[in-house]
């Protein structure tokens, strides 16, 4: 996983609430055995017309989406299916962070494990961001993970929460699996001391 520290880039807004992972990447694209190549099907059914050509009115097909790295989305982003193909598709398109007021639990965990930063902001900031990132002029945001802050176009900063462990892993580009593998002795001890229960299968 690529380490994250600070980065800045273009933000665009998709002001829809409760966007589910079936919209982020429809199920028929899950018949893959890879993580790569999903970016082209990100928001597929909102993005393409019947004949497969891009729908001009959809955000990702507009010039302002070009090179965007931050997506500002409506409340409760990523609900529904646990498919990790959703963050893979977002990252495949080029996104490095998603901003909302809330994320669905599994989606948020999946993001953190892949280096896609889920940024939770308060409602007032969210309204501002949806408006400014949804305007005709592209906006730039600066994300500062060490300080858990986003610098807004007007110079203000807003802070965001992230659990200490995920933050440490993201900053170091560390795979969380390594931490678990290091607990091997403790797991063996646990298995031995809970043999009755652990062996019911």
């Amino acid at each position, binding site marked *: 996983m690529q380490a994250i520290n600070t980065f800045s880039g273009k933000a665009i807004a998709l002001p*829809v*609430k*409760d966007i*589910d992972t*079936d*919209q982020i990447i*429809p*199920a*028929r694209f*899950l*018949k*893959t*055995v*890879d*993580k790569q190549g999903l970016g082209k099907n990100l928001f597929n*059914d909102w993005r393409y017309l019947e004949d497969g050509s891009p729908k001009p009115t959809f955000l990702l097909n507009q010039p302002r989406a070009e090179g965007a790295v931050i997506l500002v989305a409506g*409340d*409760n982003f990523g*609900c*529904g*299916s*646990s*498919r*990790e193909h959703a963050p893979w598709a977002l990252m495949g398109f080029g996104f490095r962070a998603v901003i909302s007021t*809330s994320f*669905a*639990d*599994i989606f948020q*965990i*999946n993001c953190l*494990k*892949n280096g896609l930063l889920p940024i939770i902001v308060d409602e007032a900031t969210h309204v501002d961001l949806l408006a400014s990132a949804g305007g005709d002029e592209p906006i730039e945001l600066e994300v500062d993970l060490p300080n858990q802050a986003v610098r807004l176009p007007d110079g203000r900063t807003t802070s965001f929460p992230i*659990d*200490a*462990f995920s933050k*440490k892993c993201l900053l170091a580009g560390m795979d*969380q*699996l390594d*931490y*678990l*593998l290091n*607990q*091997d002795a*403790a*797991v063996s001890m*646990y*298995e031995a001391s*809970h043999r*009755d*229960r*652990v062996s*019911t*299968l």
Partner: protein
Amino acid sequence: MTQPRTLFEKIWDEHVVVHEAGSPAVLYIDLHLVHEVTSPQAFQGLRDKGLKVRRPDHTQATLDHSIPTTDRTLPIVDPFAARQVEQLRINCKEFGVPLEDLGSEGQGIVHVIGPELGLTQPGMTVVCGDSHTATHGAFGALAFGIGTTEVEHVLATQCLLQNKPQTCEVRFEGVLPKGVGAKDLILALIAKIGVGGGTGHVLEYAGEAIRSLSMEGRMTVCNMSIEGGARAGMIAPDDKTFEYLAGRPKAPHGQGWNDALARWRQLPTDEGAGYDKQVSIDASALEPMITYGTNPGMGVPISQPVPDPSTAANGESIRKALDYMALEPGKPLLGHPVDVVFIGSCTNSRISDLREAASLIKGRKISPHVRMLVVPGSEKTKRQAEAENLPEIFRSAGAEWREAGCSMCIAMNGDQLSPGQYCVSTSNRNFEGRQGKGGRTFLASPLTAAAAAVSGAITDARTLMQ
């Protein structure tokens, strides 16, 4: 005296392997269910890192999502699905993971076969790369869905890094009226709390209406916890739970059974234990529920009209949903024409669901313009239904009786709606395109679905019941 604890807390405490300051807890996983869609990248990860599956004896794989529900003796036509299916076979063989393959009695939707085989047991931690893993919580297990990276973690270490969620008690008080069932309970809850209402929480369902449900009904309720945003939902085990499990192939036997039973009886929430949140619903006042929109929280009692976005709190979302569904605000849902009826999915494809639908279909014909698919959740369920002659009831009414799998719940396998079609479905998601691009889904119970098939329109099943 020890502090009173909830069912969730007891299971959580029992499974924490280590919890270092500044890190999430390392939680031991008792049962890991695996299917073809969310596992290939995880097995590849193991291969790339030279790792093994730590506990193949605590892992069970099956095929369900992308497989056809037509004749199993024919090869899979879709090359992508075929490759995925083949990849799971290769992975299971290479890593020593048991697989219930097509044709075996144990094959079926992961959340149907776990309980059927007796793999799912009270007090366990159960995970699967699938958000409906909460189904297994009906047995008093802590069961939740995980992503593919976490699938890899569990395969490699049998553990997960977890931050402790909060708890929420959901009480369904009172006696369910006739013709109102488990699906209506859970749809009513989601309509009340919304699709994000349970985020960050584990739900514990309690109350008279829950106690009176069969194990299959309890699974239906727990199954849709994720539709309310909760990763897990659970129900304290009782005699019904133990009766269901007794004698199942993977359940403990002999002295092991007695020992397990003694442990399981300790699991229910202690008197005086607290929850972070509580919700209560009067089950005796419920009607059959149906959704009108494009998320499972957009549900109403079946006699109610389509809501008006201009007066609703969530107006913008409802407007967008009604636009997709081509429904008019204020119009009744009853009588709205239906093109397809789907009975199946991990929510409602168990034998009691099929019996319920058959009881309404029996002696009737489905409407000539309706296509009805009945898809049992597992091979075992299918055989049971055959022993009870249910397929004959469905077929002679004009419905299709299929092989076991996820089918039109997720529409990955070719069983899908055409653009614009309306479907009354017993599955769990009505998202745009979920049952096929452009398809429109009304979520409801097996009884409501069967009633729609017979009359060709949304119907209150109680009007067709004696």
